[in-house]
């Protein structure tokens, strides 16, 4: 995921350079096709959405695998099928949700007029993703004494994540809101029998779900903001040149 990301940014840069070097000494070098695609707002939106979607799907698959591990001690030889053991529509749903969240965050930032300036760099984003995976890992692997403890620990971790990587009020509000909504939706689905927890312990799931959702929202928002920064940069450059 991150590799494709860097590859993309690299290709952006090189593409631009090549084009500029080709265009000679024109005072306003015409941008390469890639840059123009990037500058095109809708295309940019689509690209960002696609990347966020794939990130979401990937994370959903991996984290699902983590959760599956908790319930089964040992796997049959054909493990791979257990990646897709849950319903097929769960990863696409996660992907869509993450794409929406990732696009929503920069949008809200620009609406509120307070651009997010805190730790805007890829290393920080990577750190955030790693901590998110770590929270999942902890919730899957660590044995807690009871569910209250689990909930409290996860909540503390999630809020720590927000404080370390986000620290914006809008991010916090959106995170809480989406987490609540998502939990509600999951509960509805479960009560209607569309979806069943595989876990033997129902309460266990319910206690970590909101925290994981919150952390996930913060993470995806972080990625989305970082991606939006590229568009912002290009637009800024453009206006500067005009």
């Amino acid at each position: 995921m991150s590799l494709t990301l860097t590859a993309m940014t690299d290709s952006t840069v090189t593409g631009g350079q090549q084009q500029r070097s080709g265009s000679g000494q024109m005072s306003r070098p015409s941008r390469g096709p890639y840059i123009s695609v990037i500058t095109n707002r809708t295309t940019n939106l689509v690209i960002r959405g696609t990347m966020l979607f794939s990130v979401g799907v990937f994370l959903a698959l991996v984290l699902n695998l983590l959760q599956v591990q908790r319930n089964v001690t040992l796997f049959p030889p054909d493990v791979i099928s257990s990646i897709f053991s849950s319903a097929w529509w769960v990863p696409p749903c996660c992907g869509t949700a993450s794409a929406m969240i990732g696009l929503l965050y920069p949008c809200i930032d620009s609406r509120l007029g307070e651009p997010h300036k805190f730790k805007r760099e890829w290393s920080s984003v990577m750190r955030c993703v790693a901590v998110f995976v770590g929270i999942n890992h902890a919730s899957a692997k660590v044995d807690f004494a009871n569910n209250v403890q689990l909930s409290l620990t996860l909540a503390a971790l999630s809020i720590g994540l927000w404080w370390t990587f986000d620290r914006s009020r809008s991010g916090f509000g959106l995170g809480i809101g989406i987490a609540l909504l998502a939990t509600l939706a999951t509960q509805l689905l479960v009560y209607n029998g569309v979806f069943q927890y595989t876990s033997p312990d129902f309460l266990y799931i319910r206690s970590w779900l909101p925290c994981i959702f919150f952390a996930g929202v913060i993470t995806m928002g972080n990625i989305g903001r970082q991606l939006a920064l590229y568009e912002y940069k290009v637009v800024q450059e453009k206006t500067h040149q005009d």
Partner: protein
Amino acid sequence: MTLRERLREKISAAFYHHGLLCASYPVPIILFTSASILTCCYPLLRLPLPGTGPVEFTTGVRDYTVPSHEPQGDLGERPDWYRGPPVAYIQQVLVKAAVSPWDSSLVPVDVFRSPLGRVFSLLEEIRNHVHSDSTGVRSLEALCLQVTDLLPGLRRMQSVLPEHGCLLVSPGNYWQNQRELFDSDPDPLKTIQKHEPKGLHTSATLRDLLFGVPGKHTGVSHYNRKRVVTYTITVVLVSYDTRFLGSLRSRLKQLHPSANCSLRDDHMVHVHFKEEIGIAELIPLVTTYIILFAYIYFSTRKIDMVKSKWGLALAAVVTVLSSLLMSVGLCTLFGLTPTLNGGEIFPYLVVVIGLENVLVLTKSVVSTPVDLEVKLRIAQGLSNESWSIMKNMATELCIILIGYFTLVPAIQEFCLFAVVGLVSDFFLQMFFFTTVLSIDIRRMELADLNRRLPAEAGLPPPKPGPLRPREAPPPPRPSPHTITLQTPAFRNLRLPKRLRVVYFLARTRLAQRIIMVGTVIWIGILVYTDPAGLRTYLAAQVSEQSPLGDSGGGGLPPHLGVAPVFHAGDPTSTLSVLPAPEPTPLPENQSQGHHGSAGAGPRPQVPPAVPQITWGAEDEEGWRRLSFRHWPSLFSYYNITLAKRYISILPVIPVTLHLSPQEAIETRHPQDTRHPPPPIPKVSADLQTDLTLYKVAALGLAAGVLLVLLLFCLYRVLCPRNYGQNGVAHGRRRRGDLPCDDYGYSPPVSEISPLLLRGHSMDIECLASDGMLLASCCLAGQIRVWDAQTGDCLTVIPNHGLRRSSSSGCWEQRDGWDSVGGATEPECLGSDYLLRRRSVPARPTLFTDQPDLTPLIDTNFTCQPPSHLATPPRGGFDFGGLVERAYLEHESPSLGDAPTLPAQDRASTAGTQATADWDSSVWAMELRGNLIAAGRSSGKLELWDAVEGSLRCSNEDGVSGITALAFLNNRIVAARLNGSLDFFTVEINKPLGLLQYRGAPGRGSMPPSPCYSSEDVISCQLTRSVQCAHQKPITVLRAAAGRVVTGSQDHTVRVYRLEDSCCLFTLQGHSGGITAIYIDQTMVLASGGQDGAICLWDVLTGSRVSHVYGHRGDVTSLVCTTSCVISSGLDDLICIWDRSTGIKLYSIQQEVGCGASLGVISESLLVTGGQGCVSFWDLNFGDLLQTVYLGQSSDGQGVRQLLVLDNAAIVCDFGSELSLVYVPSVLEKLD
């Protein structure tokens, strides 16, 4: 002062002192740090190494009791996993069966059909075995491991593996343990094969599981030459009952005695399995590691402005890793045993500890002033960031401490590691990383110093006067006009990273070495882990030598390793020992000797055709030959994990079955005989294996050859050029020394032949172009107009007046003057004059960047009285300014005072002459449209028609000589010697009232120039004259984007608006005269001064964007691209700066006396003029792309002016010739 501030100050001071300490004693500190790292990591040696291989422990059978759960203190060698009951006890019944005596009437199927058939009766026997004594009745059902369902994914094995009952596996499972099914099975082999997985199977196949011996040892095949079938019946017991097992053993032995069996049965082996990482666990693990690497990559990418990025990144990573190791080591030292999976929590620990501090430190140190001492820089950088570092660390510690109070053991342990890791990371940052950083910074400064040395070395101080360059030419230089790059140490080229990596790999042959080492290690591992190989041999040696080989139950069983070394099945050794086999007609009997056993003694009277069943030591622990995943996979089918648990394997029960041929025939299936006789190859097995070996070898060889061919083809396709072989086809290039970089890579050669425009009789003085036309003016005052595309001379405007003479005459005149001057006035001029005269004919290398002062020297000089020279009239004119102007117009300021002085004397006289002359020389020229604007030394501004060569208008409002001209739209700006600035307006009265605009082709930056036709009446009006534009003479004048920028000797730059000639800004910031200015359409203004500084200004606001010191001595010229600023200086250095940040990207050290003129062809192509050549550089990486020689003559005629035209052509002056160089091939390559 609040407490906080006091604290802050204290911390800052402490960090400052610490930084000083680190930078002062780098080596001792690094040694100390390494020692402490090693000390802290020492306890880690006691931790078990990660690995998935099972661990064994052997105890005696007799006094066996189930180990208790509590750890017992000093049980010596008892491993700590040997606690509590095992998951299961494995009892194997090893069956060896053979049909004997072998009869020629038997078919190959008989080898295994009836022996396999006997498994069912054995199973019955085992299942029904009941042991009853005083304590009660025990049966297998009560003792065995009851299993439930198979895992859901294993439906296909449901028919084979037992479910809901005892875990008892045997080959009989293939036929559901029913004799009838077996008997009616037409092809048992097929049934067995049916269950084998398709394709490559790794370790434990179903066949291995059921047979309990490796597939090739079972003997169940048509080609079994030994005719002995081996299989096991594996009983998995949940509890250990000595009496039951004893009775079972004795019962089976009694039923099927093994006469020659001497297997030991007094040892049981406990096998402990480590945790295995499945794919399902691997995927999240790999994901976290990928994220970790991305994090490290993105973090270390930010390290900048240091000598070795890689080195510092490595140091940062080493810091984090060793702090983690230290934390684990310390925790272990204080009695905490890590229970968490190290590999799992490791990425999270790294992320929590982070690389941020390291980066912050680097950035802070790098951003300290460069001119400070290294020590002070480190100290300042440290103390600047001390507060934030301490604050961050305190916050992190707080967060982790909060985590510690969650009271979840795993999280607590994690937090403990993290806290210790954080503290040790801080320690390492302070001591290790800071020191490494100081070393790096010092190295960078050293490198900077080294780079500057050659520039200074070019000026040996003791030799006076301008003689020195000629006297001591550097002898090893093969040809004087080549730009030879400096030795690698002095070069600071920025190759692309991938290329650098490739070069590095190529240079050190790293890949081959790694592969070689890897192969050696691999082979070593293979040899070591080979079951019959080194390890067992070593083990045997050790156990033989050890005095307590079998003391107690804990020791290694002495027989354990001996067996495989003297392998019973080794055909060659046994063949030589045993007596020769009796001759038999049957070919099968050839193999008889092979199973003459080395184990127990063979039975004495063996009928020749009897397949012999032998029991060797290797049968004792036959399970060793199975894959180590055998047991885990068997148990995993029933969802029982063996990870971190152990099983106990009981000694095998040997069962020998001898079947008579009749029995074999009776049990035959009707189809058995119908099978075609198996195509038993008559060759012996040895030959067979040899053949396969040959086949494999041949295939491998073929594959290797194919691979080499493929790679060769790929190479040919991808690299069509012959790198490194400076081609035979490029004879011209070989004339000069081919510039090779330190990797032996010479840039691709493509021929660029310059077009020489000849016609001028003397050296070219001014050069102007508007893209279509090219105007040049020589010393003789002749102006020539050329077509920039074709190089045709369109017009010649001769200088009217005294100097209209042929070129030969001109030269003669000058020569005459030289000789006369030398002869008549030696006493007046002294040695200075002599030196000057000598240096004229052949331009010395060092002086090429000095202006040619010959135009200032009047050729009528000889008629002046010599006394005039001795007392130069300094009243009327500023001769210093004149000389300065001349210097700067050539964009090559003086090297120093020594050479200037004599020249000034000359110039002073010349100046008087020049103004006294009624028709003065052209000092500045501009070309727009069809009009040539020429500024003369008399202060006259003339407008010539470029095509017709007629004078259209002239203006004589000023008297001071015009030193520089700018022609933009219809305005002309002239800078005069006295520091005033005149704005002229060109008015065109068109008869038709129409202005045709001719856009410059392909160049957006050029404003459309009005085209003047010959009928127009052109007038030139002085609109405004700024009398005191500068205090001192104006040295540079540039105009673009509606602004006129002047730079002067008075250290200031002024910006005027072109329309109303109003002064917008006076930019101050240089501490020396301005020598170079660049402005372009995007309103970027760069200025360079004599102080070696380069300033970037914002023309809109007049603010200084950045200010950098790049050169020692004057900045001679400045060019900008959209991303960088390129400057050249008197120190022969070309520096490339980042335009937005002002950071020096890299610099190119050139030969002494080169690089005064610069031009940018495209965004990434730079042109510099040198000695008789021009060089093309790749701006992105600083590579020299090509050097083009302008003429055949090898005298060092320097290129002083260089113009870049639109069509990627450059024009430069080359003595009296102009040179037009097209560079299409370079562009092609760049694209």
